[in-house]
């Protein structure tokens, strides 16, 4: 893995991603979560309140984590492919697997900062929820990794990665994942909740998968997405204009 991580590609990616206007969007879901937590803490401070697991679990894992990962994951490589600057990176002998893994690592790190860390902060701000906060933090770290692999792969596979990602998050995970049990086996949110629930079991988290299932499926999805992205990037073609 370390030989696949290219620090030059990582440095360029950090600067390019954080320098874009859409970088402002990264922080918006986190700010909303923390603000919501502060409001609820002021209005419902009682011990045993249900809102911490509902807000941190539902909003945190259904909105904050997937949307932040979607914006970042599709930016780190997809934005460069869209604007054409990726060609300067790809016209070098750097292995395409190294490009994909580095972009994935940067996306995962940034998602951890903009989604998992705010989840921890919000959890610590909520009353009597320290253990839940750490459980959700670990779940969000896991989710940051898996979502990043999926969305980086989506940005290589399609130029409409954001639309595809939104459909996945809203329709598959948000709707089908809660209505149809089988849909959870392909839900990154449920892998993350499965890990969090194993650390601090809480019925209100509505975790539908066990720890073992979550870890195994999450690993398969992450590795599969990275292999798929590498294969696709190895055959990267500039969109031609027919004569």
């Amino acid at each position, binding site marked *: 893995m370390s030989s696949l991580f290219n620090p030059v590609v990582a440095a360029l990616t950090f600067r390019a991603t954080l320098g874009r206007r859409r970088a402002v969007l990264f922080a918006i879901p986190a700010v909303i979560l923390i603000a919501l937590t502060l409001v609820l803490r002021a209005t419902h401070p009682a011990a045993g309140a249900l809102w911490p697991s509902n807000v941190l679990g539902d909003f945190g894992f259904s909105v904050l984590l997937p949307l932040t990962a979607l914006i970042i994951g599709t930016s780190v490589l997809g934005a460069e492919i869209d604007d054409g600057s990726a060609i*300067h990176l790809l*016209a070098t*002998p750097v292995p395409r697997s190294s490009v994909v893994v580095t972009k994935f690592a940067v996306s995962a790190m940034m998602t951890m900062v903009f989604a998992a860390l705010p989840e921890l902060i919000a959890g610590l701000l909520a009353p009597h929820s320290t253990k839940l906060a750490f459980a959700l933090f670990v779940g969000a770290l896991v989710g940051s990794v898996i979502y990043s692999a999926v969305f980086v792969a989506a940005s290589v596979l399609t130029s409409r990665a954001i639309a595809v990602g939104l459909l996945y998050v809203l329709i598959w995970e948000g709707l089908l994942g809660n209505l149809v049990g089988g849909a959870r086996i392909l839900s990154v949110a449920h892998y993350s909740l499965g890990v969090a629930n194993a650390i601090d079991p809480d019925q209100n988290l509505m975790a539908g998968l066990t720890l073992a299932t979550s870890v195994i499926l999450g690993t398969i999805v992450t590795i599969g997405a990275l292999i798929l992205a590498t294969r696709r990037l190895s055959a990267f073609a500039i969109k031609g204009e027919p004569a």
Partner: protein
Amino acid sequence: MSAIELSNVSRWYGNVVAVNDITMTIGPGVTGLLGPNGAGKSTIIHMIAGFLGPSKGTLTVDGRPSWENPGVYKILGLVPERDSVYAFLTGEQFVRATAKLHKLPDLAGATRRAIEMTDMADAADRKISTYSKGMRQRIKVAAALVHDPQILLLDEPFNGMDPRQRIHMMDLLAKLGTEGRTILFSSHILEEVERLSGTIQVMVAGRLAASGDFRAIRRLMTSRPHVFNVRTSSASDDRRLAAVLVGRPFTNAVELSGKGLQVRTSDFGAFCGQIAALTRDNGIALRELLPTDESLESVFGYLLSDQAN
């Protein structure tokens, strides 16, 4: 001595053929890829650069396929036409980052050499976002040259350059060519190719219309039939001029119309050189002399039809 070889290469998008059965070998020196917009020049450059796979045929760079082979970039540099670079970097940072990606042993030396070669030393510390189009073009060339490649591909490299930058870039490419590198650049401007390269490949509508020495192809271009619309001060002068021109060896045909006369000539130079003197000597006032059908597309189209015949 690195060479680029295309053998019966075609590339299509759906049912649109962008490049049709091209066979060519490009060796050391400067070669111009000439053709009108949409002729398939960029498709050829992208295929050679490994950013498009041929739909049919074989394409090798230094004996190895370039498609799905990032190793080819050790000997190949690419200057894409699209004006998108990491604009948040300075010119020096961009070239240096490229040198790092190539894992060059002497980063500072390679970066300085490439920047000096492209005459960008004065602007190297400025962010690329502040560069003019011509400067962006030159910093892209510097990045493409940083690893001292044997093959350099440039897609419309002179776009956006002012005349001084253009001359400097032409001198640089000529120098690189004489050093034994294989330089291939595309252009739709005849004069750019004429000034820079002895060898050209002319593409029209995805096909190779002409290939070889520029001067021979230039002669083909100028000896094609030319058509001029000519107008004098009166209908009687039109008729008199028609009578004068009919007897000349360079005149193929003269056609009178209500708006003057249309002259077809096979000798562009002789017609243009003599028409003024002929009208003056015969006391005819020349009001209008308009070449028709002089677009580059028509010139290339003539070459293609000539080749087909």
